[in-house]
Every structure is written in C-alpha cells, then in structure tokens.
C-alpha cells in the first residue's frame, strides 16, 4: 500500500471539507423544503432554541439570533450538548461545567476527574502537573490511551507518534470538562479503547466581562488568574492569563526548592457573520504556556516514607522539568437551522527538557533505582546504593557514579478537521448525521543526553565527563481520519450507527550520525464500527446499550510485529433525569484481544520505548453516578453528588513478559493500578451569598504489578480516603473571598512506587483567595 504524498493528502482533505460544506448546504435546502411541507413537524435537538426565537421586535430578533449562534457555537466547541431534558447520548458522557469547576477551584485535573465514574488515575507529583489518566481500566500511564482534547482538537504533544501526554493544559482556564466513554468515543481518535477527555476554554463573551482571581496558600502556593473579554459589534476579543507557583511540599535533603512555576496566556479573536441563509463564526485562538518545575521521578523507600512521606533524597537536587507550549487554532463555524459545520485548523508546538536522575552508571554492578528503593537492605549492593542516593556515603567506584539524563524533546502537532452535523429526514424518520474528516500530522524529535555525577559530601558533583548522546531520533505520523454517525429515532428508540476510519502513515528515523539505515516506514489502516441504542422509557428515563471496536495504534518506531491494541467494548445501562435528580448506571465489558503496554521513564524507569503484547484481557465493571439538590429553605440548597465505580480485570492467558508492570502473568491475574472500588461523594450548602462544599473520595488499593518475578510483585498501594473542602462568601460588588483545603485531614499514602520508590499523595494544602468580577 503506497502512502499518499502530503500534497495529495491535503488536497483530499480540502476536497472532502468542501464536499461536506456544499453537501450540507444542499441538504439543508432539501430539509427546508420537506420541513415546510410538514409544517415544521420535525424538531431537533440542535435548534430548539432557534425554533423558539420568535420575538416581534426586530432588534430583539437580531440579538436573539446572535445569541443563538453563540450558544450553538459554544455547544459545538463542547462535545456534550446541554439542551436536552433527557440526555440521550449514546454511551457514557459526563460534563463538568464551569459552575462545578468553580465550586472547588481545583488546579489539578486529577481532583476534578475523581468525581467522574470510570476514571482511573495514578497520581504522581501531587500537583497534577503530568497526570496519568485512564478510563474503564485503560492504563493511566501518561494518559496515553485516551484522547486528550482542548476545544475539540487533539492537544497531546504528538498524539499519534508519542502518545504520552507530557503536556497537559492548565485546568484553571477551562470552563468545562467532558469525559465520554463507549461508542460516543468513535468520533474521536486515534485511541478508541477507552474514551476521550475534552477541555473547553473560555469563550469570547458577548458583553464586556472581566475577572480576577488571586490566591495564596501553604507550601508557597500562589495563583494569579484573570481574563477580560468583550464584543463590539460583531468582533469579540478575550485575553486570559494564569500563573501558578508553589515552593513544593517535599523536603529536599540539604534544602532546595521542590516546587514549580507555570504560566499560560491565551487570546481569542472572534468574528460573527450572520447571513440570510447561514450564520458563520470565525475564531482565532493563540496561546503560550510554560512550566519550570523541580520535579523528579525519585521516590522513597517504604521505611523513609513512613518516617516522612514528603522527604526527597539529595540525589534528586538537580531534577528539573522545563517546557514551553505554543498554540494556534483557527475555527470556522457555519450553520443554519438544520446543519452545522465546524472546521478547525490547529498547530501546537511543545518543547521540553527534563533533567533528572536516571540511575547509577553501573557496569560490574547494576541495580535499578526501583530495586534499590524497594529493597534497600536486600544486600550490600542495595545498601551501598541507597546510602549514596541519600548522600550518606560518597560515590567511590565507577559503577557508583550517578547518571542524570536530559530528555530533550521537540514536538509538534498540526492538522485540519471538519465536523458536520446535519438533520435529514428520510424513510420518514429524523436522522441526525454526524460526519467528520481530519488530516493530522505530528512529530517528536528526541535529543536525549546524559551527564555523569558523583555524590560527594551530600551533594551531586559533576565528574566533568563529556555529555553523551543517548537517543537521537524522530518519529512522525501523517494520519487521515474519517467518521460517520447517524442517529435515527424510531418511536422511543434512538439507534446510532457509526464507523471511524484511521489511515496512518508513520515514519521512524534514527538521527544519530551514521544511523541513516535505522528507519521504519509503517502504514496502518483500520475501520472501527460502533452501534448504540437508547430506548426512552419515559420523558425522564431510558436504557442504553452500546458496542464499539477499540483501537490503539503503535508508535512509528515500534516493530510491526507488535500488534495494535484492539478490543470490542460493550456497555449497557440506564439513565434517569427529573427536575434536580439525576442517576445513571452503566455496566461495561471490554473484551480486549490484545492488550498493549510500553515503557517510559514514568513507568519502567527507562525510555527504550519498547512495547509489549499482553494478549487477551477482560475488563468489566459498573459505573454509577447520581446527584440531587435538596432545597432546605428559600435561601439554602444542599446539592449532593455520588459517583461509584467498580472495576475488575483479568488476564485470560499466562505468559512471561519483560514489561515491568506485568512480569510472569498467570491467567486470572489483574491489571496493575486499577482499583476495584472508587467512590466520590460531594455535598455542600449553597446560599445566595455563600457556599461551603466537601468532597470525599475513596480509592481502593491497587496492585503495583500483575504477575510474579518483578521488583514490585505482590506490592500494593493502600486504599486512600481524601477529603477536600472549599467555602466562599460573596461580598457582592466588593468581590468574593474563598478558602479551601485540599486533603483537609492530611491523610497521605503511597500513590505508587514507580518509577523509583514510594511517592506521596498531596498533603493538606490551604488556600485563601479573592475573586473580583467586572
């Protein structure tokens, strides 16, 4: 199969996009005619608001029309619609809106997502700087098995070529977080095994609007966040900036900052063009972000963790992550009552360098840091290495030198995508057709080097040896994706059938001198079908069923002998919404024919990027979510929300694996880092001028490794219960004061022992903040 040349691909994509638009226009005309004939008999979910706009005053009509376009555009930027009384979404879809995000004012996406069922998380640094998120049992490592999107566009540094999400957007600037699993995910690729996470940034306001939020807290925490936006005539602008910093909650032996600084600035320009037949929106988004964090992969021995979970060994004193991210996105939105097309052009650049301890130089004596910290007293070797890591003894022998690696990587991700929503009537039924096409390119260039140090008088001292290049390569992907979904309503039954196609051309090239012959060109083509049913039992409740094929591509460098991950995922459940009460229960079963995992520093402590086949695995569970708002009196409400997830997993075959999280697996073994039970309970009191909220979450114990024969075999993290609190008082025109505490009872546990040693959850952290809106 010959790969298409870039120019041809672009032509193809543009042609398809043009076809989508012209087809939409033509189809709209046809629908208009049919609707006229049927006296507007067919309502639809997209244009409910438009159909009800019936003002007699011309100026009101204009304003209303503009507002409608705005609403629909905003909804389009989000994936989950908000206008339906009964959410008939095919598959599990959860929206956390701005109000909910404001309640706890979390900076950490992990804490936001804990309230969503079916989300499994492996915490790492406590601040959520580099989250590990999985859905329905998918490995959470660097969130590489889910699609992470911002405003509907893939936002991972190189989602096809290097799926690990070392860049993650700032949670503070998001106005909505959406999670969807099951067949709903077929619209969003390339990873369809688990689901997608879409984060929605603030929209350009229709009227002048500004906001300032400043906060200070324990461990040197500080936050400054603000935005201003307005629309004059049809032209709108928004500028938003966020700065976060903390000195860190860890105590570095010998002193030193273990915190971070993180900044993000975003601007949007928007132009609304309303016409006789169609309305259009043009929007340009530009953003720049940077982070410097003194973060490390080095944890503690269990014994040291018990003494002080926040200790950090001196051998991590030079560890530092430094990245910058720039973003360009242009959206064009065109719609009328029966169709909408949004086209997005995007480019993201991400440059990062993480300088951190990799391990001992080794040679005659070799031990991984994970082994040393898991068994510091196993023998003289581990004892000696442990004492060097902690600075209690100096390096003497060659193999006792410490290697610090600078994993310097440059990424880009760019593309153009169009999504069409169309309402058609044929066979006498209303059809909601969704179709899309995307041409996407991404690339990672690795320029990894290492330096040699000795531990001397409890400090790292350079040996003066030359910096060595370790990995110098490039992985690049060109991918065309298409999807088509149609939802037809037959009486109380909504049937959605869909299919996604991924056509991936991947290239790996070793860029080291003399290694031109080390390359791999690989093409993968796949069609992924989905089917979902929603049966409305009443105006308030219904049953859903879904099945879709899950897929996870391999990286360009991976040997073609390594299979892609594939699965057939089923879900069945019910949903009931009435007034202030919502409940949803969904059972899922993922029949994985080949589970695939790979090694990164964050998991294995090495970046050889080798991937492993795990064979057949069954993953199943139940997700429950429910919320209700009790009205206590005229002024005070008591909202309460519960989320529960039960997950079980099982390898179906026995095998010996070189993957550090698996080891020698016996059929029946469970997946690592997958808690059987997770519960999140949120409740509070809300009044006109004040509120107080509590969030309690429980995460069951988790296996650190599935099978035998690896360092962390048989080791688990302990179950963890954390309580977060927030409260605010609104002084009306003088602003709002809030106080919050994450982990109010200061309950810290080991969240994982990877890649090297035990790492703590975030301790108690207080914040006092002030918000002013204008």
């Amino acid at each position, binding site marked *: 199969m010959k790969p298409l040349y870039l120019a041809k691909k672009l032509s193809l994509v543009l042609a398809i996009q043009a076809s989508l638009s012209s087809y939409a226009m033509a189809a709209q005309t046809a629908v208009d005619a049919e609707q006229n004939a049927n006296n507007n008999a067919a309502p639809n979910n997209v244009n409910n608001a438009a159909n009800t706009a019936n003002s007699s005053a011309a100026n009101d009509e204009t304003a209303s029309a503009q507002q409608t376009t705005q609403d629909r555009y905003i909804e389009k930027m989000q994936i989950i619609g908000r206008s339906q009384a009964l959410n008939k979404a095919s598959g599990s879809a959860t929206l956390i809106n701005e109000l909910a995000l404001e309640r706890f004012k979390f900076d950490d996406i992990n804490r936001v997502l804990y309230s969503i069922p079916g989300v499994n998380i492996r915490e790492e640094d406590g601040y959520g700087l580099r989250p590990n998120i999985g859905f329905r049992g998918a490995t959470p490592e660097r969130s590489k098995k889910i699609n992470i999107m911002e405003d509907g566009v893939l936002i991972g540094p190189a989602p096809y070529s290097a799926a690990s999400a070392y860049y993650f957007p700032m949670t503070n600037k998001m106005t909505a977080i959406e999670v969807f699993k099951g067949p709903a995910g077929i619209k969003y690729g390339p990873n369809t095994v688990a689901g997608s996470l879409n984060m929605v940034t603030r929209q350009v306001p229709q009227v002048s609007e500004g906001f300032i939020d400043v906060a200070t807290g324990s461990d040197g925490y500080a936050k400054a966040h603000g935005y201003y936006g307005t629309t004059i005539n049809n032209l709108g602008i928004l500028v938003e900036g966020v700065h976060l910093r903390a000195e860190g909650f860890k105590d570095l032996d010998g002193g030193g900052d273990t915190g971070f600084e993180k900044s993000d600035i975003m601007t949007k320009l928007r132009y609304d063009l309303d016409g006789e037949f169609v309305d259009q929106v043009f929007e340009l988004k530009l953003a720049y972000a940077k982070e410097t964090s003194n973060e490390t992969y080095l944890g503690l021995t269990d014994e040291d963790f018990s003494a002080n979970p926040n200790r950090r060994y001196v051998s991590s004193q030079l560890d530092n992550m430094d990245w910058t991210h720039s973003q360009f996105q242009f959206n064009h939105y065109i719609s009328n009552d029966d169709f909408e097309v949004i086209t997005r052009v995007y480019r993201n650049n991400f440059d990062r360098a993480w300088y951190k301890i990799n391990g001992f130089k080794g040679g005659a004596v070799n031990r991984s840091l994970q082994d040393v910290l898991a068994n510091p007293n196993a*023998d003289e070797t581990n004892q000696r290495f442990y004492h060097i890591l902690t600075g209690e003894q100096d390096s003497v*022998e060659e193999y006792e030198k410490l290697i610090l690696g600078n994993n310097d990587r440059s990424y880009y991700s760019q593309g153009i995508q169009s999504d069409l929503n169309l309402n058609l009537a044929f066979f006498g039924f209303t059809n909601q057709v969704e179709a899309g096409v995307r041409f996407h390119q991404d690339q990672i260039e690795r320029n990894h080097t290492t330096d040699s140090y000795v531990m001397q008088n409890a400090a790292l001292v350079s040996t003066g040896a030359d910096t060595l290049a370790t990995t110098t390569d490039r992985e690049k992907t060109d991918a065309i994706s298409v999807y088509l979904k149609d939802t037809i309503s*037959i009486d109380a039954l909504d049937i959605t059938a869909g299919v996604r196609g991924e056509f991936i051309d991947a290239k790996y090239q*070793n860029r080291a001198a003399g290694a031109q012959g080390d390359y791999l060109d690989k093409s993968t083509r796949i069609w992924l079908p989905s*089917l979902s049913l929603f049966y409305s039992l009443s105006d308030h409740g219904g049953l859903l069923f879904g099945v879709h094929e899950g897929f996870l591509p391999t990286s360009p460098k991976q040997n073609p002998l390594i299979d892609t991950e594939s699965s057939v995922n089923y879900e069945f459940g019910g949903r009931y919404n009435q007034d202030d009460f919502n409940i949803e229960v969904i059972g899922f079963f993922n029949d994985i024919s080949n589970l695939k995992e790979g090694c990164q520093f964050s998991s294995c402590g090495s970046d050889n990027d080798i991937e492993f086949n795990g064979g057949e695995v069954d993953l199943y569970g139940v997700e429950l979510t429910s919320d209700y708002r009790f009205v206590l009196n005229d002024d005070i409400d008591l909202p309460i929300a519960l989320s529960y997830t039960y997950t079980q997993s099982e390898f179906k075959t026995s095998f010996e694996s070189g993957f550090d999280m698996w080891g020698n697996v016996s059929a029946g073994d469970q997946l690592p880092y997958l808690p059987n039970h997770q519960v999140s309970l949120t409740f509070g009191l809300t009044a006109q001028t004040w509120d107080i909220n509590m969030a309690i979450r429980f995460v069951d114990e988790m296996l650190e490794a599935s099978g035998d024969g690896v360092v962390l075999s048989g080791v688990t993290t302990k179950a963890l219960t954390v309580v977060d609190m927030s409260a605010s008082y609104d002084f009306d025109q003088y602003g709002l004061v809030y106080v919050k505490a994450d982990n109010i009872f200061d309950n810290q546990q080991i969240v994982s022992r990877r890649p090297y040693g035990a790492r703590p959850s975030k301790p108690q952290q207080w914040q006092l903040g002030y918000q002013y809106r204008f």
Partner: protein
Amino acid sequence: MQYRTVYTSALLVISALLGAGCGESTSSTKGPNYDSNGSDNNGETSSDFDQRALISNIVDDVITPTFTQFEEKSVQLHSQLTAYCTAEQGLAQNSVTQDERDQAFSQAKQSWRDAMVQWQRVEVMQIGPLLNNDNALRNKIYSWPVKSRCGVDLDVVSFEQGNINGVAYDISLRTPARKGMLALEYLLFSETTAHSCTESTVPQGWDNRTESSRLIARCEFAVEAAKDINVNAQSLISQWDGEQGYAQKLKQAGEQGSEFTTVHDGVNKLSDALFYIDVFTKDSKLATPLGLFANSCGTSVCPESVESPLAAHSIDNILSNLQALKALYEGEQGLGFDDFLVDENDAITAQNITQAIDAAIANASAYQVSLAQALLDNEQQVITTHAEVKAVTDQLKSDFINSLALELPQTSAGDND
C-alpha cells in the same frame, strides 16, 4: 416494516464488522539497520550456518563441563577447609603439630586458588540462572566487586554464637558479601586476624580473643561458607542442566513455546556472555586499578583495587577469564563463534579475535609478580595488558556483532560504556 428491515440489515452489517475485526491492515518497510531495540542490525545473517549446532556445542561441551568442574572444586574446597580447621583446632589442643597445621592451611589456600581459577571460567559464562534476580546466585558464590570484610567478621561471630538476635544463624539467608569465595579469600589470606570494622558495630568480644581462638572461629565459618558455596554450585547445575534447565531452553531456542523467538536469539544470549571480558576483565579488573576508572584511591593507580589483593590472585583470575573466553568463542573442539564468522564470510574477524585473545593470554601468562605489585613496579605492563584485552573487546563490539547480526548487551552498549 421496510425501514425496520433496512435497519436490521444495518445492525447485522455492523455486527459482522465488529466480529471480523474490521479489516485492520499494516504494512511496513524496514531500514537495513532497523531494530526495534535500537541496535544496529535486525538479526538477519546471510549464511545457512547451523546456529542450533553452535548452541548445542557451546552448551554441552563448554559451559556444562565448566559448571560441573566448579562444583567438583567446591567439594574439594570444603574438604580441604574442613581438614585445615580440624588441624587448627588440633593445634589449639596440642594434638596437631604446627607443621601439620601449616600444611593443612597451605592446602586449604591452594584449594581456594584452584576453585577460584575454575570460578573465573564460570564468570565468563554468566547466562540464565547466574543472571536471574540481579545475579543473585552468582553473587552468593562470588559477590565481587561488592565486598564487606567487616560483614564477614561479624558473621564469623554470629555463626559461632549460632544465632543473630535470637534467630538461628542460617548462612543461606545471609547477604552475598558476607560469604562465598570473597569471604573465603579474606578468611584464608588476610595477614591479620584483627577485624576490619571501622564503625560502631564490631564483632562482639573479638579484640579480647586469642590469636588461636580467632583462627578457629574464622576457619569454622570458612567451612560453613565453603559448604554454602557447594550448595549453590549444585543449585547452579540443577538450574542449568535439569530437565527444565536453562541449557535445555537454549537448545530449544526458536521452537514452539520457547522463550527465544528464534535460534539467533539463543545465540545472542551466548554472545552476551562474551562481554564479561569488557565490563569486568577490562574495566573493573584492569582499568579501575589503573585509575582509568574511578577507584578507592580516586582516579590514580590503586593496587588496593585489584580483584584478589589478599590472595595475590588477580592476574590468575584475568588469565582464567581469557582462557574461558577462548573456549566460549571457539567452542573448544566443536562449533564456535569463529566458525560462524567464517561461514558469514568474515574469516578475517574470526582470525583477528583469535589472535587478540591469544595475545592477551600470553601477556597475562607472562606476569612474574602479582597484579598489585606490577602496578607499583611496572605500571606499563598492566597498561599493556589492558590494551591487549581492549583489542579483543573492540573487535567484539564492532566487527563481531555486525558480521553475526548480534546485539550488544546493554552494559556494553556504546553510550553506556
């Protein structure tokens, strides 16, 4: 009804697509040097050399006899140490003369040297059970370069007392540097019976004991350590040569259910062992005392950093390593890597490596003094030895692996060197 038929058909089509896996297809083009693990070749050789026969020969005619002979040496070592200890106790009870005791002591030391020569051959054949669990079995027999003389002193007393903090003493549970061949070198060849502990923990009552009492305590522990070495040597043979042993797995490489996907992968395991000569012999045993690598003297010449300073056996160890390398490379009288190279039309490399190994063996054989003494008296001689060994490893790292499409072990890969 017609519509329902249409949708029923659609459902059936989608169900069929789901069941069929939807026609995923992958095609690829590999570069000539592509390898998923990052080495410079892809495991493909040009000749039809019988690699399975190579494995069988090296396993059956080189490695298995080497392991077996070490086990036999360990039996003799235990026997000689027992005899010596009996003599030491007899001397204290005046039932044995000083000469008889000295003779027994001398024989015990010689048996250690004999066992060490054989062990140094085993060292070059670290495959399978000797590598598992961070070299756990190998370290139990010989933990060098990790050593703990104070640990040995402490265990001498613990063994004598029969318990550690109330728990019965069990040498099999003790850490590697407190036992094995390294402990025996200290117990037999140390010039003094004073303990080596410099920090707060010292062997209880040691300083107040008589010389004779110390020697008896040490020899009794040495007997226990020798017994433990024998137990571990037997374990090595059992894990290597049993029905489910690693030797059998190697010989079945490439067969259905084998942990080695191809026969070539099995050959690669054998070739990995050759690189002991790079990491240990060249770097740790020569470059380190020469000060080319960091050592306990900093980065200067350091006689204290030789492998067996107390027994003055370091150059013998190196010689034994080189002889074992030759056996492993040439396959003794049968098929070896040299034959493989010749079959791959690289007779020049085959010959170059043989000549380089022979030159290094000749060089190491020519020492008239210990390695530590040579470092003091004739540093150039040691520098030459290092260069001779490096000539071997340079060939192994380049022409050898390229011609035979083998992968370098991680510890010898260029960037990590």
